[in-house]
């Protein structure tokens, strides 16, 4: 009896078999082939002075080890309003986590740690969120009902997040299509995780309770780039109000992905939109590969319902050579070998680039059974830990058949039972297809298991809060003060003749209102203003440090100054680095430090004939183009700001 084969070869072969293509090589036909489908949940912090349900300041953050007190909580599942337990809730409870919160007096009061009922909702946050709801063309509710959404992972000390729907059924207009919005909610932000080791999870509470909105789209996106476009649109729309927070962590999105026959899987907390395409691409193919495993397994196993694992405990003497295996045989730990009937050549099948099916099990062992990784090896490890002799020994001890596989894991005694249940549960799922789950993302475009996907069963009315009526008069007043649509702004910039490659930055930083003022109030040529804001400013922000908080509106003052001093607007490009670095410096001083001298236009033009003569003397190649080039280079520095370079070039 031998199980020998090359797992690496199996990985490669199975990848080809499902028709995996790299994203850069993928076409719409590839996505149509696997039935790519995706929707978004875009989270955006609202800019307010205070948190949503208490009077702590919003946006005051502290480092991991800078805290004043710690408190400990455990979470238990409770019934939903409709009398059911939520699947995720039950799973989280199995993990028996001890959750510790680090709190800082400045940013956390007794509300966040659930020792005081909520205060009335922050009206500033509600109003800002309603404006965004209106911009998203949503049907605004008549009365806001605060709901509790259960989170048993501990990310909120109460065990639930207070959240409320402001509108349903909206839409956004992308370049080529409309995308439907399911709903927009206002909610309190959660804790930030510091660590999660074994049965202990550590959080800090600075971000907890800050106001946040969540825009949820229908799964209308049919390829990864479209998902990113939709996400950018929603983020730009949010930012166009000027009433949202920007910077690290202020905007994050969950990306829902499925393939044909797959399931809704939610990739959580993607911080940058540019990561979306790779992540959603890989997720769709991960599901596609798991569906192929279903096909294989259902062929091998006729009666899936009776499929079971069996296991034996391994002793130190059971291994031939010194087993080179993570901290094996520690006190109170057990090493267990688990037989997976009919899983031969399945554990090493491709799921994502660099990942195999066995990883799906290992990740669940980490989350559900609290076994820190590395927590297992198996009979098809791409980087074998056991030597061939031990592999065969274990197979023999397990009385395994030719088409079986095994897992070998090491766990504290108390966690063995949960670990075995977890392995069996995940393996049984292959007969069904793709499990619904939330997954954590990585920069390389891969994801790992995070939680079972929660359902509507985790909602419960907040008995501590009264409903908030929204009168039609109030809604109409808000509607009057709205900025115009992103899609209209897009068209306007096209009409102004501003090149499209600078739009993203203008939307991202919400510079459109400033752009409009520069063009209409100061008559700055549209393309000068557009390129300055969308390209020059972007470059400066990426390469220089500002000594103070840089206020974009001060750029209006800069252009106004140039206009008043009758200096050409082009000089702004020379001033911006200095001004950005020292925003408190007055404009005249900026001119001095960049060495600008005001010279009359005529004086500059007057030098041309002298320089022409000079070129005749020294020029190596005597032709018209080189002459112009040389003369320009001599005059450029003194000309900028005093005469338009295009005008000067024409004269030369």
């Amino acid at each position, binding site marked *: 009896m031998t199980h020998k084969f090359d797992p690496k070869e199996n990985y490669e072969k199975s990848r080809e078999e499902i028709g995996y293509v790299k994203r850069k090589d993928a076409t719409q036909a590839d996505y149509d082939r696997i039935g790519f489908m995706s929707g978004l949940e875009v989270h955006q912090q609202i800019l307010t002075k205070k948190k949503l349900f208490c009077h702590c300041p919003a946006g005051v953050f502290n480092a991991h080890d800078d805290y004043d007190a710690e408190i400990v909580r455990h*979470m238990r599942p409770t*019934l939903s309003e409709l009398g059911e337990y939520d699947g995720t809730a039950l799973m989280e409870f199995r993990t028996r986590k001890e959750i510790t919160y680090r709190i800082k007096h400045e940013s956390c009061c007794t509300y966040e740690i659930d020792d005081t*009922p909520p205060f009335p909702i922050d009206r500033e946050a509600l109003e800002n969120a309603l404006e965004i709801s209106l911009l998203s063309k949503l049907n605004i509710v*008549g009365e806001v009902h605060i*709901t509790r959404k259960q989170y048993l992972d501990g990310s909120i000390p*109460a065990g639930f997040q207070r959240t409320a729907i402001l509108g*349903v059924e909206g839409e956004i207009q992308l370049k080529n299509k409309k995308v439907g919005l399911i709903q927009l909610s206002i909610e309190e932000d959660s804790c930030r995780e510091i660590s999660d080791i074994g049965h202990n999870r550590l959080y800090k509470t600075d971000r907890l309770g800050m106001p946040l909105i969540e825009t949820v789209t229908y799964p209308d996106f049919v390829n990864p780039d479209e998902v990113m476009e939709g996400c950018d649109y929603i983020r730009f729309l949010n930012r166009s109000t000027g009433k949202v927070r920007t910077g690290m962590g202020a905007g994050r999105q969950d990306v829902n992905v499925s393939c044909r026959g797959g399931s809704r899987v939610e990739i959580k907390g993607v911080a940058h939109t540019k990561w979306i395409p790779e992540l959603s691409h890989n997720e769709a193919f991960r599901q596609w590969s798991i569906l192929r495993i279903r096909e294989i397994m259902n062929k091998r196993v006729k009666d899936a319902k009776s499929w079971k694992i069996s296991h034996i405990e391994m002793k130190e003497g059971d291994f031939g050579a010194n087993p080179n295996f993570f901290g094996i045989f520690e006190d109170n730990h057990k090493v267990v070998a688990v037989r997976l009937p009919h899983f031969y050549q399945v554990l090493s099948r491709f799921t994502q680039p660099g990942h195999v099916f066995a990883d799906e099990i290992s990740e669940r062992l980490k989350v559900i059974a609290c076994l820190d990784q590395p927590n297992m090896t198996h009979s098809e490890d791409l980087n074998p830990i056991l030597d061939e002799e031990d592999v065969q020994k274990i197979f023999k001890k397990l009385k395994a058949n030719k088409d079986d596989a095994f897992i070998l894991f090491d766990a504290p005694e108390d966690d063995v039972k949960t670990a075995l249940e977890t392995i069996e549960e995940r393996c049984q799922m292959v007969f069904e297809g793709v499990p619904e789950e939330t997954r954590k993302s990585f920069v390389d475009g891969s994801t790992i298991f995070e939680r079972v996907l929660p359902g*509507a*069963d985790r909602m419960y009315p907040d008995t501590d809060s*009264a409903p908030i009526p929204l009168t039609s008069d109030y809604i109409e007043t808000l509607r009057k003060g709205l900025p115009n649509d992103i899609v209209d702004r897009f068209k306007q910039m096209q009409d102004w003749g501003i090149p499209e490659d600078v739009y993203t930055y203008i939307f991202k930083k919400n510079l459109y209102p400033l752009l409009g003022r520069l063009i209409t109030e100061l008559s700055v040529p549209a393309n000068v203003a557009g390129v300055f804001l969308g390209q020059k400013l972007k470059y400066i922000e990426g390469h220089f440090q500002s000594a103070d908080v840089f206020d974009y509106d001060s750029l209006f003052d800069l252009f106004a100054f140039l206009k008043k001093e009758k200096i050409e607007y082009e000089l702004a490009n020379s001033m911006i680095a200095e001004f950005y670095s020292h925003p408190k410096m007055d404009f005249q001083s900026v001119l001095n430090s960049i060495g600008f001298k005001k010279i009359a236009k005529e004086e500059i033009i007057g030098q041309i004939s002298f320089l022409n003569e000079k070129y005749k003397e020294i020029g190596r190649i005597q032709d018209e183009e080189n002459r112009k080039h040389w003369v320009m280079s001599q005059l450029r520095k003194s000309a900028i700001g005093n005469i338009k370079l295009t005008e000067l070039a024409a004269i030369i």
Partner: protein
Amino acid sequence: MEDLFQGYKGEALALLKKYKVRVWGTAIADTTRGRFEGTVLPRSENDDDQHIVMKIVTGYNIGIDVQTVTKMEETGYKKANYAIPEKQFPITPGLPYVKLFGTGGTIASRLDYRTGAVIPAFSPGELYGAVPELAEICNLDTEKVFAVFSENMGPEQYMSLAKAIGQEIENGIDGIVIGHGTDTLHHTAAALTFMVQDSPIPIVLVGSQRSSDRPSSDAALNLMHAMKAAGSSDIAEVMVCMFGPTSDEYGLLHKGTRVRKMHSSYRSTFRTIGDTPLARINRNEIMPIKTNYKKRRNDRNVKIMPFFEPKVGMLYFWPGMQADALDSFIDSGYKGIIIVGTGLGHVNKSLYPAIERAQEKGIPVFMTLQTLWGYVHMFVYDTGRDLMAKGIIPLGNMLPEVAWVKLGWVLGQTSDYEEVKRMMLDPINDEITEREPYNGYLVYQGGVPEVEDFVKDVHK
């Protein structure tokens, strides 16, 4: 007949009737703000008649403004069945038998649509469904004696509870737990201390500060601690068992006469005042703090004394108080009065005539303290001596609420002035103590470096 429109009234009710949409009906509502779809939910009675509540498909609730509705249609019906899964509470030989009395409160609760608040749910099966760990602590039997919120507990309930306890002790139970709302938990604890004397077994009152419908509720842990204390501790006293720190770490057992609710919402709200608690407790062990408590016995010789005179008043003194405040008690036929005085036990001179009137009428008037900590000392200042001369009786370090309970209990047995005075000053279980230990008063001040160090290092 079932109410088809639970909680709806006025215009909202008219609208539902007009379009024949029931509560729990799935419906489509077209409004001037667009279309909404979901299940119509009951509405809280105290909310307005301008909105209809719906649960939309994503599980969230929303309200629809009735003024905006142009059309509504019921497309189905789906009534929620809210029940904590009931499981037979197992009997484990060798574990103690504990009786749980339910009085209401948030120890176990579910949603009440009528008020939008939570109402108690309670049976061994429900409790086992929600907190299966209880089966590892004791064998459990439960009995609902009443279902009232804590603030509605009063003398009637104290007396019937005392009798029920007496009966259970006679039946041979190993320990008693009483589930109770937290607001007046300490009043009931004091009342039971006086009404159930020489109990051979622990009597433990427990509540929760966060209702059990929340994942981070303290209810489950409090219940486990209380069951452990009732079944396995050798402290045969009336005690309150609640969170020690706000963290999920351990509970404290407080003597029923020295405990007080000290924060409106904190989990660790109950504190022993002027002394230390009896013990710390977790799921596995009871760690005594005091050693001189009443020990568990095998006999069943309990004294049940269910007496109470409800006409007892309590007057919280304010500066500038006039005699009429006290006179109104006297004129309304109150049979005894507890004054909660300032500092060492003082009130102003304006009250003197009223105090003299009470004395003439033979109404006993006692002095307790707004400071809560410390003893009444009426010899220190002239005011105190004046008051004593006028017949005011200082109650040492008896807590004001305990004094009120005890006076009601005493007056329920005798109206003889001297006897009332004697009984009030003769402690039954440390409601007046002879000494206040140095660590009996520890209200630490935040911001002070050594306290900040403590708060940082210890999960308080």
